[in-house]
């Protein structure tokens, strides 16, 4: 998704773009995502600024691509089940409002106006009208198509070409070289490997997540609904399994149930305990789901960075190399802003946002 967005905005900035992927379009984490475009789960700071920029760009793209990408400005509802949780949630919402986010406190007795099938006994929540959803694989494919970039799928990058002075001048693939004065590393969870080919380190780690998919239902969950502890899980650094209920309907009918986070490497095996925890969380929020059947699960590997911020921008250690990766679970949402900023700096202009917090070499400097 991030690569597709970089290709689109770079092409629109007048650059000649080739998009190289060892797999198919949306073959990595994009194809395993829920397609969340969220501001609700972000604390004020650089990531939220990138999210707000991205949302604006998503709205523009949605006008252009129409329903092909299943874009739904449905809004998010975060709910709390205890007074302490609600206080923390409302505190966060107040800070987010100050940062430009629309956030509306919802008292307990109004929650069911928003979501009629919510469990009784919740203490309140916050409505985030700006939260959106998109079908990520369709979005990636349509952005690639709209970019008219040369699409080189099924080609594995095996090396980064450098001049004698060290400047990047393209990539070597298993099916020939692709020459370019600028190389954007948008390899998601596998970006660390691409960075290593250029001789630089980028500490991207996989953080596994499962999504449970139900049978198709008539629309009963209107927003993206999740429990307040989700924000804490997103921000956590723990490698152990964490699950917090995230429930949302889809245009196609099935309800998607997340979210689990665990750092177990690239282990693709199914975990029944994780599926059980997801089911338990979702049925607590929406009791009607108890009788609904789970059809399947899918899993993906979020590109996790130690400080939960992506790497966006030029790499001074390898001139000509740019990074656009490490967005963890927010890559779909943050892709447009990332692509836009990358295109701005590739075109020699000043990026709309300060990229200092996203500097790819920031971890190395800390180590020194």
């Amino acid at each position, binding site marked *: 998704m991030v690569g597709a967005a970089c290709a689109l905005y770079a092409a629109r900035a007048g650059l000649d773009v080739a998009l190289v992927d060892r797999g198919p379009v949306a*073959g990595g984490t994009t*194809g395993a995502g829920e397609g969340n475009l969220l501001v609700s789960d972000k604390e004020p700071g650089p990531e939220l600024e990138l999210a707000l920029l991205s949302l604006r760009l998503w709205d523009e793209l949605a006008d252009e691509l129409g329903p092909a990408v299943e874009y739904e400005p449905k809004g998010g509802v975060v709910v709390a089940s205890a007074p302490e949780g609600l206080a923390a949630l409302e505190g966060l919402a107040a800070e987010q409002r100050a940062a430009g986010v629309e956030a509306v406190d919802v008292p307990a007795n109004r929650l069911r106006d928003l979501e009629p099938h919510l469990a009784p006994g919740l203490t309140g929540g916050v409505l985030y009208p700006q939260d959106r959803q998109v079908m990520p*694989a369709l979005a990636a494919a349509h952005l690639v198509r709209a970019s008219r970039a040369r699409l080189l799928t099924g080609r594995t990058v095996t090396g980064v070409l450098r001049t004698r002075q060290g400047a990047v001048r393209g990539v070597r693939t298993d099916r020939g070289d692709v020459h370019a004065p600028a190389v954007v590393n948008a390899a998601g969870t596998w970006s660390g490997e691409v960075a290593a080919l250029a001789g630089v380190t980028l500490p991207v780690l996989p953080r596994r997540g499962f999504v449970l998919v139900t049978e198709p239902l008539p629309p009963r969950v209107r927003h993206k609904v999740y429990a307040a502890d989700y924000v804490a899980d997103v921000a956590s650094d723990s490698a152990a399994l964490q699950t917090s209920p995230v429930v949302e309907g889809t245009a196609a009918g099935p309800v998607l149930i997340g979210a689990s986070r665990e750092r177990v490497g690239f282990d693709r095996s*199914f975990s029944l305990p994780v599926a059980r925890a997801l089911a*338990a969380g979702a049925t607590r929020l929406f009791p009607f789901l*108890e009788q609904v*059947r*789970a059809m399947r699960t899918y899993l993906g590997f979020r590109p996790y960075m130690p400080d939960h911020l992506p790497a966006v921008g030029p790499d001074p250690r390898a001139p000509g190399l740019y990074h656009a990766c490490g967005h963890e679970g927010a890559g779909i949402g943050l892709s447009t802003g990332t692509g836009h900023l990358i295109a701005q700096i590739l075109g020699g202009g000043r990026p709309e946002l300060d990229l200092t917090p996203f500097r790819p070499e920031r971890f190395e400097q800390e180590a020194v």
Partner: protein
Amino acid sequence: MPTDLAVIGAGPAGLAASIAAAARGVRVTLVDAAPSAGGQFYRQPATGLGARRAQALHHQWRTWTRLREGLDRHIAAGRVTHLTDHHVWNVERTSTGLTVHALSGPEQETPVAVRADAVLLATGGYERVLPFPGWTLPGVLTAGGAQAMLKGTLVVPGGRVVVAGTGPLLLPVATGLAAAGVAVAALVESAGPEDFARHAGALAAQPGKAVEGALYTARLLRHRVRILPRHTVLEAHGDDRLEAVTVAALDPAGRPRPGTARRIPCDTLAVGHGMLPHTELADTLGCRIDGVAGVAVDDEQRTDVPGVWAAGEATGIGGAALALAEGHIAGRSIAARLSGTAPDPRQWERVARSRAALRRFSTTLDGVYAPPAHWADQVDDATVVCRCEEVRAGTVREAVGRLGAGDLRTVKLLTRAGMGWCQGRICTPGVAGVAGCAPTAARSPFARPVPLDVLAREPLQEGPDAC
């Protein structure tokens, strides 16, 4: 109390394994979705049909009687517990062994868990049906479905029937229907005599099978059923339901011969294109799967996951006789391994030889029975290829042509083909063919849909002694 061995599937492989293991002192829990043992092949009840089958397929009928009696004896002695109407949705590896998770009850909502030291996956196969224009019309059913109606309920499809497609199932289906008094208008088989001639040597090595085929053919001729080898169904016609099919002869390249198309009026079309193995439970357990061929096993029928064996169609489509041989070997291997000894394969040498011969034979059949090479060309853009999600062939082609999908997973993501109720079990071969990508085995950690409240709570253990 946990069981020693959980056998999933009470078809030929599962029954042979249960009996072989129980006879060697293993406590067996046989878990099966059907109300009675037999699987697809020995589907029950067969009252009334029994005499007719016994006449035509005497050796198979005798085998079934022996299996049934063996099972009853072990059940009576308490060595085998038979859980009928239990639908297994997942097999879980735990720190202490394996747990088989099933759903029972009229709505399949009651969770049942069986703890076992060893599991045999005898999950069988299912029919492959490739799409063609009109295949979703009422009146079109699978060849296996027609046979199940005949064997299971003794209800026969009404009116004139055309049996079409490819594979060894078509002959017995057409014969069975004709013998039951149904007017079979034609048997349309895309394999031709030259395909059989090419493999004459290997086929002759199984004289029993050849005799079986000759018997079927003779009976079809007696019932005046028209056999159209090297033909295919191009289209099924009808407004609300099936009224006719257009069939055409195939040229050596597998394309319809111009000028040979003709219309055959019919009320029912029973169509099938061979079988595929059920591999989802194995896949979720992490067993190695050989593409779409089946679960990979060694000479003892062991998968590469400790404690998990597989036998029968799940390890590759080969028919009931092969399933019996594999099941028997699996049962003996499990009995030895559970008692901590390595089995001596010489003890089942005769069965192993028969297994080898039957596997060679089924490989030969795979070469004989193949859908026409260019079948997907006949599928026009308007034809629905995924019925659950109502995805048309044109949408799949667009995902490949315009959106750059080059593999089945991407096609699925971009079109929703294979994401519906059947989870791709029915449509995957058709979608792959239309997309021009390699087919992959259907995958889901849930071999069948499971209610979220069942998933949400840890089930009580249930084994032979807890029932």
